[in-house]
């Protein structure tokens, strides 16, 4: 019997054959903590009797949820983490770099074959780099900080095979919303999802990040794209590693196989209040929106802003909509700025903020009042996610967000001439 890519990663790290269902104490190559889950992880580290972090050079620390500090509590939490970083010799990116998942990728903290954990559920995004990456809670993180290792139950894998090319103004976000609607909010619980096939083989890294990021929205422990030349091209710019081959064996055992053809896929919108409620944009077109958010770890990269700008052209956003644009990192901000897109967005009436989680955090800023409707390129539309529990959040691609920002209502981006 062959092995899945996930089983191979654990086998490499554990130096023995392992298979799905086994529980192993595996070494952690990198651990990421941010300003919301970090303080508690540090507290738990101390409560466990921790004195020295096992491998400080393998810890990524930064602040992105409440930056710059938006309350005294946030300021205290930041100060607490800064002190810990100094005491333990951990490099702290502080508020300088942006959203944790984007920064972890940019700084080369995840590479093919590695095991990476983050105290944030969207850590599964680093599967785009060919890593096994999973979100954990603060106490598990305290344990990983102390011991440099963590218990893992090796997950079974659902293999998603894709074919076809996207229509104009349809892309990875539409695909992952449609896969999520198909698999369901708990359809991949405890499992990994391997994204393969023609569509993924030709997809760029930002698109792969968008898809892997949302694996958790199906309950998955990890999402992964087998590393290929596109992956290694990205990795060699951020990390000094020699490329090697890593893929599932042809006779590997998958718990489920699913196939999707994207040729006729329409732009997708997830209706409130669950991520698996994706429908064709035509079904909800005309719904009035009060706020449009383009950004987040899911869709806050230069390519996402280029997609939005292409739809926007030289138009202005509707006066009836608050359009908030937030690049996911300083690097993505600079790329977008140098391409002239920031100026275009500002001229069109958008508010451009410095890199951070923004409205997706549901506590910092950009909150919604009862009865208001938001259209967002982020990853979650739960009740209250962006403010009032009486508000509604719809999820979509950057193209759909831009089109809807122009007209003040949910708009099919293919209709914008």
């Amino acid at each position, binding site marked *: 019997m062959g092995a899945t890519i996930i089983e191979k990663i654990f086998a490499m*790290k*554990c*130096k*023995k054959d392992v298979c799905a269902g086994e*529980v*192993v*104490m*595996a*070494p952690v*190559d990198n651990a990421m903590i941010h300003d*919301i*889950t970090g303080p*508690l992880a540090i*507290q*738990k580290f101390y*409560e*466990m*009797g921790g004195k020295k972090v096992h*491998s400080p050079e*393998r810890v990524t620390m930064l602040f992105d*949820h*409440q930056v710059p500090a938006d*309350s005294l*509590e*946030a300021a*205290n*939490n930041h100060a607490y983490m800064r002190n810990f970083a100094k005491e333990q010799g951990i490099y702290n990116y502080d508020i300088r770099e942006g959203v944790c998942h984007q920064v972890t990728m940019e700084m080369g903290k995840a590479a093919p074959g590695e095991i990476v954990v983050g*105290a*944030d*559920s969207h850590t599964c995004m680093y599967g785009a780099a060919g890593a096994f990456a999973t*979100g*954990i*809670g*603060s*106490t*598990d993180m*305290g*344990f990983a900080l102390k*011991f*440099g*290792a963590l218990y893992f*139950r090796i997950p079974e894998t659902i293999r998603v095979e894709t074919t076809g090319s996207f229509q104009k103004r349809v892309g990875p976000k539409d695909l992952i919303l449609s896969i999520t609607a198909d698999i369901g*909010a*708990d359809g991949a*619980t*405890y499992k990994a999802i391997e994204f393969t096939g023609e569509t993924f083989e030709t997809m760029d890294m930002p698109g792969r990040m968008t898809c892997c990021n949302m694996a*958790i929205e199906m*309950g998955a*422990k990890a999402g992964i794209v087998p590393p290929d030349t596109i992956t290694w091209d990205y990795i060699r710019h951020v990390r000094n590693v020699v490329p090697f081959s890593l893929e599932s064996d042809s006779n590997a055992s998958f718990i489920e196989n699913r196939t999707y053809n994207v040729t006729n896929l329409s732009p997708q919108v997830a209706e409130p209040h669950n991520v698996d409620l994706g429908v064709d944009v035509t079904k909800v077109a005309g719904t009035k929106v009060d706020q449009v958010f383009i950004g987040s770890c899911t869709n806050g990269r230069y390519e996402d802003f280029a997609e939005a700008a292409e739809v926007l052209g030289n138009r202005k956003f509707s006066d009836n909509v608050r359009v908030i644009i937030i690049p996911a990192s300083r690097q993505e901000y600079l790329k977008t700025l140098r391409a002239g897109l920031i100026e275009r967005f500002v001229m069109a009436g958008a508010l451009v903020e410095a890199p951070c989680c923004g409205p997706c*955090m*549901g*506590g910092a800023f950009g909150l919604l009042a009862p009865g208001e409707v938001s259209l967002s390129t982020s990853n*979650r539309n*739960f*009740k*209250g*996610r962006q403010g*009032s*529990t*009486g508000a509604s959040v719809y999820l979509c691609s950057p193209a759909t967000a831009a089109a809807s920002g122009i007209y003040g209502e949910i708009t099919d981006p293919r209709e914008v001439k």
Partner: protein
Amino acid sequence: MRVWKFGDNIDTDAIMPGRYLSIYDPHVLAKHAFEGTRDEFAREVKPGDAIVAGKNFGCGSSREHAPIALKGAGITMVIAESFARIFYRNAINVGLLPVVCDKAGSILEGENVMVDLIGGYLIVDGRKLSIEPIPEFLMRIVDSGGLVEYACGLQEVPVCTASHQ
């Protein structure tokens, strides 16, 4: 212990809204549990009460504030048809018992419920409902009272490799 009944896909944003995530005190967090989605919970919950829910309880964010708030409110166990993975593990780590019971839907709001982990069943107002066993490696953490207590007894862990690459 009375039962608080919830439906499917209860996410951690509902259990603990994002605006309280800079707080870590269990008793302060408990005052905001289910704020905006079920306000009477924080007012009326009593120590020893239980939560009963449908599928995928605790989905979404990895915020440990969610199980900590429930524990701070006096909830001792959450019974559900299924749990989201991160919440399940967080609950065990902080000493809140997650119980998987495929007949959770038959338990009614306000009923009394007791658990027998060794026997592998719940007693709900006299009825016996079987539950899924907790995986062995997690049971050791449950028996210790949580991951902190478990880890306190360890100097180092037997990692499957001798050292990092």
